[in-house]
């Protein structure tokens, strides 16, 4: 007997010519079943629920079907509707229930709300296309088809210790005309740039949010320039299960799912993992003044953390806070990540303002947050990388103390700050930088160095070029009178604020960028590079470009030629890291010799060998390659953040070996970085390291 002949897939009810029957409560969402679609949705406080069906893009529904009372099991309304045209269907719900904000209820049956489990959302199919603001249902749930041909693809499971992460914005990466891709600013455009990412040497691409969001949310014009400012970054989720349609060249055909999967498949073929920046801390519904998109109209009290008066706690800084540790919401987050891991082959997730995920239903931090524990031990996610931005806008700062369960890594904000301060020559930083380059054992002693996601720049803040070109933020283009954005950047402009033709200043900036990169890629932990830093991308001093869908944010590919020296340095530096397991250990250094090599695994030095100066501006360290797995060269890294050149006494290399120069940031290409063992041999026991420079030797 075929599935089509089974009695449980035959209709029992009919209204307006549409046939339906009792559905199945699980799974939530819209699921294609024989002859029909199973619709299932949760609400704990509604009085009734109505399924609203549209033909694609039509303003009025073709049918509304109220769930008969017997179709509700517990708090779940479910129904199978037959003979639907899957390709031409959009669906939503109306919920009737109490309007009692003081009790957390904000039901409004006049609103059509979307399915929290919607796999595809229409309404913003083409990036920046003017929406129909009169449409009562702005973000329209559609069906997804899981028929993509993955062939033998699966997540790559690259060991965390070997990752080199590249943080990028889908649109910003190729939107600039200089990208010369066939569909700028899309998943397809990004796919065409995979060869560039391969040649750079990164093996993990971390994308800023690609869950469906509304670029028009809070859109406004700059009060002076008239420039249209949008929600460009996308840290405001409309639908957790749906990819951003406007990021797909084929979004207008409803094929964003396929285009994204094709990108992921091609990335995997190139040996590059994909990590998503996911935003579960809040939704795009804002506070009590915000729109009804989904959650508020379905079960406001369940989905949001509310004040005793029924208003929205704002630990996210964006108007509301998702109630992540409510069991129903927790399950939604789990279902969502499992879906992305299994259906899209995602390799890892970076959680925006992840500390919110550790708050209870009253907003208080939990010592053993159920959601974080569930994610850590989930069988489907067991090989996915989980990385926390371990703070939130409500004042919770958990770098080093985020509940990890042996699984979670963290964006190490302390690494960022220490690296910046050391590079700009702040005195007394050698002690802290020594800790940071070891993978921050003070923070992660019980987890290992791969818990430390090391970065110096990310989307939120200065680019690397701006870090060495500006003392102060310049966010006037944001239209907020330069009040927004971080004031504590630990940046230094190298003698002139902003762009200059001064060759001395520009040479110093190049050197400082090379210094930052060298520090990052010789540190134990997982390095992350910001899109365009390898070609000196500038945002003209803007350290909060969230609203700029323009050349301020986009990557100018013309710099690939103009900044070829910097790009060459970065790509060779990344190759250097890949070539040297001594840099990528997943255990902390023991500071002793446990293999009988005669040298400790790591040792610190100053201008005199074996005598580090913990109060100064220069520091050297030596890695014994015999302690690496597999065995590696010995390595000596001399970091001089002082403004003049200094002589460094070099410790003796292992017997029979001689030190060679691998990197010297004080030099221009081609003497700045050497491939393999092609660098010059050091004949002397003393090394002159230029002012504000780093030298790396191998033996």
């Amino acid at each position: 007997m075929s599935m089509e002949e089974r009695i449980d897939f035959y209709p029992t009810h009919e209204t307006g010519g549409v046939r339906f029957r009792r559905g199945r409560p699980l799974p939530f969402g819209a699921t294609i079943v024989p002859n029909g679609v199973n619709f299932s949705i949760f609400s704990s406080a509604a009085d009734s629920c109505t399924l609203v069906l549209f033909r694609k893009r039509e303003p009025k529904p073709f049918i509304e079907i109220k769930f008969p009372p017997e179709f509700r099991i517990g708090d779940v309304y479910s129904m199978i509707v037959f003979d639907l045209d899957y390709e031409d269907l959009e669906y939503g719900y109306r919920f009737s229930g109490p309007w009692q904000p003081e009790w957390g209820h904000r039901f409004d049956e006049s609103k059509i709300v979307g399915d929290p489990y919607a796999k595809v959302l229409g309404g913003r199919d083409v990036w920046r296309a003017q929406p129909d603001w009169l449409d009562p249902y702005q973000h329209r749930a559609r069906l997804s088809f899981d028929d993509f041909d993955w062939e033998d693809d699966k997540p790559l499971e690259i060991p965390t210790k070997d990752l080199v992460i590249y943080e990028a914005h889908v649109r910003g990466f190729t939107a600039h005309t200089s990208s010369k891709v066939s569909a700028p600013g899309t998943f397809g455009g990004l796919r065409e740039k995979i060869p560039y990412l391969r040649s750079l040497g990164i093996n993990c691409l971390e994308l800023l949010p690609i869950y469906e969001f509304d670029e028009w949310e809070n859109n406004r014009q700059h009060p002076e320039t008239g420039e249209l400012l949008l929600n460009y970054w996308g840290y405001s989720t409309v639908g957790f299960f749906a990819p951003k349609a406007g990021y797909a060249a084929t979004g207008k055909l409803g094929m964003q799912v396929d285009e994204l999967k094709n990108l992921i498949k091609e990335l995997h073929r190139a040996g590059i993992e994909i990590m998503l920046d996911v935003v579960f801390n809040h939704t795009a519904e804002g506070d009590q003044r915000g729109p009804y998109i989904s959650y508020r109209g379905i079960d406001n009290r369940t989905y949001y953390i509310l004040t005793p008066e029924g208003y929205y706690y704002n630990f996210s800084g964006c108007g509301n806070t998702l109630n992540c540790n409510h069991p129903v919401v927790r399950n939604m987050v789990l279902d969502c990540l499992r879906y992305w891991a299994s259906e899209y082959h995602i390799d890892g997730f970076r959680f925006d303002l992840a500390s919110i995920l550790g708050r209870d239903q009253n907003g208080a931090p939990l010592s053993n947050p159920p959601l974080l524990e569930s994610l850590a031990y989930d069988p489907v996610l067991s090989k996915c990388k989980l990385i926390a931005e371990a703070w939130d806008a409500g004042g919770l700062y958990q770098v080093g103390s985020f509940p990890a369960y042996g699984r979670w890594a963290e964006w190490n904000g302390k690494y960022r700050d220490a690296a910046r301060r050391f590079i700009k020559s702040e005195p007394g930083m050698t002690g802290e930088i020594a800790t940071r380059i070891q993978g921050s054992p003070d923070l992660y002693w019980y987890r290992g160095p791969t818990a430390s996601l090391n970065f110096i720049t990310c989307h939120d803040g200065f680019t690397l070029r701006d870090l060495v070109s500006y003392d102060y933020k310049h966010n006037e283009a944001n239209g907020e009178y330069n009040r927004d954005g971080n004031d504590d950047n630990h940046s230094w402009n190298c003698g002139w604020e902003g762009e200059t033709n001064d060759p001395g200043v520009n040479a110093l900036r190049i050197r400082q960028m090379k210094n930052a990169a060298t520090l990052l890629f010789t540190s134990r932990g997982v390095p992350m590079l910001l899109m365009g830093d390898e070609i000196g991308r500038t945002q003209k001093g803007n350290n909060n470009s969230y609203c700029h869908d323009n050349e301020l944010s986009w990557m100018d590919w013309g710099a690939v030629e103009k900044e070829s020296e910097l790009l060459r340095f970065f790509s060779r530096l990344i190759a250097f890291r890949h070539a040297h397991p001594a840099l990528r250990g997943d255990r902390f250094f023991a500071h002793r010799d446990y293999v009988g090599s005669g040298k400790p695994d790591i040792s610190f030095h100053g201008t005199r060998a074996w005598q580090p100066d913990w109060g100064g501006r220069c520091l050297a360290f030596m890695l014994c390659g015999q302690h690496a797995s597999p065995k590696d060269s010995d390595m000596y890294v001399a970091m001089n953040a002082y403004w003049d050149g200094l002589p460094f006494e070099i410790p003796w290399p292992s017997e029979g070996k001689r030190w060679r120069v691998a990197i010297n940031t004080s030099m221009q290409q081609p003497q700045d970085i050497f491939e393999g063992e092609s660098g010059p041999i050091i004949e002397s026991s003393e090394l002159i390291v230029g002012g504000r420079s780093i030298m790396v030797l191998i033996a």
Partner: protein
Amino acid sequence: MALDIQSAVDGNTARIALAGELDGTSAPALRQTVDKVLSGKPAQLVLQVEKLTFMASAGLRILIFSKQKQPDLKIYLVKPAASIVDTLHKTGFFDGVYVTDAEPAGV
């Protein structure tokens, strides 16, 4: 614009000529035709699409479904419009079909 569908089966080869727009409305008719011509398990499916001006996701999914039901089926797209080829590339379907300027010899 309506979709005009002409089909024929010749030995191991099924042929379908399409003209007009293949969208969500016209896709079911193509689906029926494809099911009919593939019922005898031919080795090749040749789609003459020179006069096809638009192919929606529904049309592409018919091809995918055909391939999934009969993995050894060779699907030829003869003279597709550039926009259709571009969509095939972006969505990853290009590898599953043969795009040609003429019906291949021996087919």
